[in-house]
């Protein structure tokens, strides 16, 4: 693939006919990712939204060989696929891409993913991060951002939503010494496609995390998925960067950041912060996260 990924959307091996919700960020991400990989790839998918909406038997939108095993083992399964492809003489030619949600990546699949990283398998692992367990009905994951209401972090007299910071998964990936870690957003498809191509060109384990708004789980108009993803980036809450061991990360510049309130106000999951007495202090804390990102990554 090359910079013309967007022009070849029609040729993406990920085709229409799946059962994603309208405005599903994950599905948009996968279409871009597959346009970038082309057909010479095996895709491993963890249990989750993507697996569910792309695999109702006997239908499939996958124009490439596709394997779903379980929730918590995409990293391990992809390791095995990579080894077997090598045994069959397809090593290097046929790429292996594993795709999991944030629950399957940050939480339940972290152990097997860590194993894939440290053993050095030539696999590109991509997390579509929609910041909660959407497939089961919007429960909190360790990727859920501070302040967000989910069905297991509902605000109340003694709770104001998710009260722990989002796990820094790219830093965990980088700590394994793997050659390439990057973040991306569905709002910037050329950037996403370029990072996929970059990852595939590097031997060894790669980690790519793609921010994917979920209209159902976050509470917004499905027509606004891309606009909302862009606000997340422009506020500084979702830095888009590439990192390699021993080098400072390089980030996409966002210019003058927009206030986080612009992003938060557009979503039902943060509405309580604008309605409750202690909301302002929590919003200020979220603004501080964005400010820290701007400083940390030079956004």
């Amino acid at each position: 693939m090359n910079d013309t990924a967007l022009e070849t959307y029609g040729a993406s091996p990920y085709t229409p006919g799946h059962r994603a919700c309208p405005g599903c960020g994950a599905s948009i991400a996968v279409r871009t990712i597959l346009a970038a990989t082309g057909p010479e790839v095996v895709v491993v998918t963890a249990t989750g939204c993507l697996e569910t909406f792309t695999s109702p038997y006997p239908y499939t939108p996958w124009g490439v060989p596709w394997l779903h095993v379980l929730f918590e083992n995409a990293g391990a399964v992809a390791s095995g696929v990579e080894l077997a492809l090598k045994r069959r003489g397809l090593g290097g030619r046929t790429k292996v891409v594993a795709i999991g949600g944030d629950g399957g990546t940050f939480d339940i699949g972290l152990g097997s993913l860590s194993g894939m990283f440290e053993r050095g398998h030539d696999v590109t692992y991509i997390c579509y991060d929609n910041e909660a367990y959407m497939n089961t009905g919007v429960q909190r994951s360790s990727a859920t951002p501070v302040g967000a209401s989910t069905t297991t972090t509902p605000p109340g007299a003694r709770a104001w939503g998710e009260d722990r910071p989002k796990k820094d998964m790219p830093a965990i990936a980088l700590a394994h010494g793997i050659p390439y870690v990057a973040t991306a957003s569905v709002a910037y498809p050329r950037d996403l496609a370029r990072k996929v191509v970059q990852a595939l060109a590097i031997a060894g384990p790669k980690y790519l995390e793609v921010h994917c708004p979920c209209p159902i789980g976050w509470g917004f108009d499905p027509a606004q998925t891309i606009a909302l993803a862009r606000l997340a980036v422009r506020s500084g809450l979702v830095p888009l960067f590439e990192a390699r061991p021993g080098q400072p990360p390089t980030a996409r510049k966002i210019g003058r950041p927009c206030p986080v309130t612009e992003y938060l106000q557009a979503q039902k999951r943060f509405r309580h912060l604008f309605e409750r007495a202690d909301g302002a202090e929590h919003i200020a804390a979220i603004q501080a996260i964005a400010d820290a990102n701007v400083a940390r990554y030079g956004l």
Partner: protein
Amino acid sequence: MMTEGRITTAKGRVAVMEGSQAIAQAVKACRPAVISAYPITPQTHIVETLAGMAARGELDADYVRADSEFSAASILAGASATGVRTYTASASQGLMLMTEVIYYLAGTRLPVVFTGANRQITAPIGLQPDHQDTMSLRDSGIIQLYVESVQEAYDTHIQAFRIAEDHDVLLPAMVCVDGFVLTHVFEPVEIFDQPAVDAFLPPYEPVHYLSPDRPMVFGSFTDETNTLEARYITQQAALRAAARVEDAARAYQTQFGHFHGGLVDAYRCDDAEIVLVAMGSVIGTLREAADRLRAGGISAGVLKVRCFRPFPAQQVREALGGARAVAVLDRSLSFGAAGVLATDVKAALYDSPEGRRPLVLGMLAGYGGREVTVDTARKIVDEARRALGAGRPPSCAASFVGLRRELLPEERT
């Protein structure tokens, strides 16, 4: 370690070696492409030996040091779905951790071969050889073969690949080997030359596998319109496996001269009044016990259930139909119910015609690793004779053989 002294035979050689090393020799001869494992006692000597063979270049396999048993099995799911031969070994908690993957392998028809080095399940934690670990996989769809000796462990691993990879079967298979009693014992074993094993076990030819040349999907989502059919298909494959287990055992006998039974192995059952039914390494002791009992005028026999899944109900009925009493020696228990093997034996006999339905005694013998000797077997037979005298089996569904009552809280007061 193998000893220096070796005897050359027509198709191989005989050497004294540890059970784990014999298993590793069998696995090596089967030429798996990917081996993935995580250490757990008493499986370790098997995978250490394989890792050494790979390191020395004697075994052309990718040996993956997985981060858990769960990942070890998952790596093999990926490799098997990509069309290559795969192997792993585990035990006890490791098999529990693999359970989720094993159900997947059966449902997706991926013929990964396992060694289950039998060991108790925690709690209490311990290293004792019983069958609670592998029996917990009873309903997963994996084929299970229980072996009696190191030689049978060697031979059965080679058969297991052939059974699992048969296109009529395509299911995972597990050779269940009593921990320590077989994995760590040294015995003379005949191992066969590579060309002879190659002649018995052809290269794996997958029917379905991941390839960009012919894209297909594995692991689809099913619903009420087709889940039942998926289950039916797996059940048919498991039932077909029974004939393949028999075929493999007979073909192996023809080629190598070794036979340890097919689905079952009946020893002196034809005219037996009392038959002891069991699986695994205890069988040797029971054969000895039957001989001695017969010398004392008691007509005893032994039925070895070699293949536990698929369960050979017909063969069990035929072997036990002439007996008056049957004692099932179980090394696993379904708490609140009965021994796991005894339950299946009783269910099989229920369909026997009138007059061919012996009394069945459920005996937990060897459970938790409690030793079973010839004398233990004699006591079990005595109990069976008392039951025959009373005309009914003991009231409890599962007797704890050799129970030390002085250790029980209710006995201490």
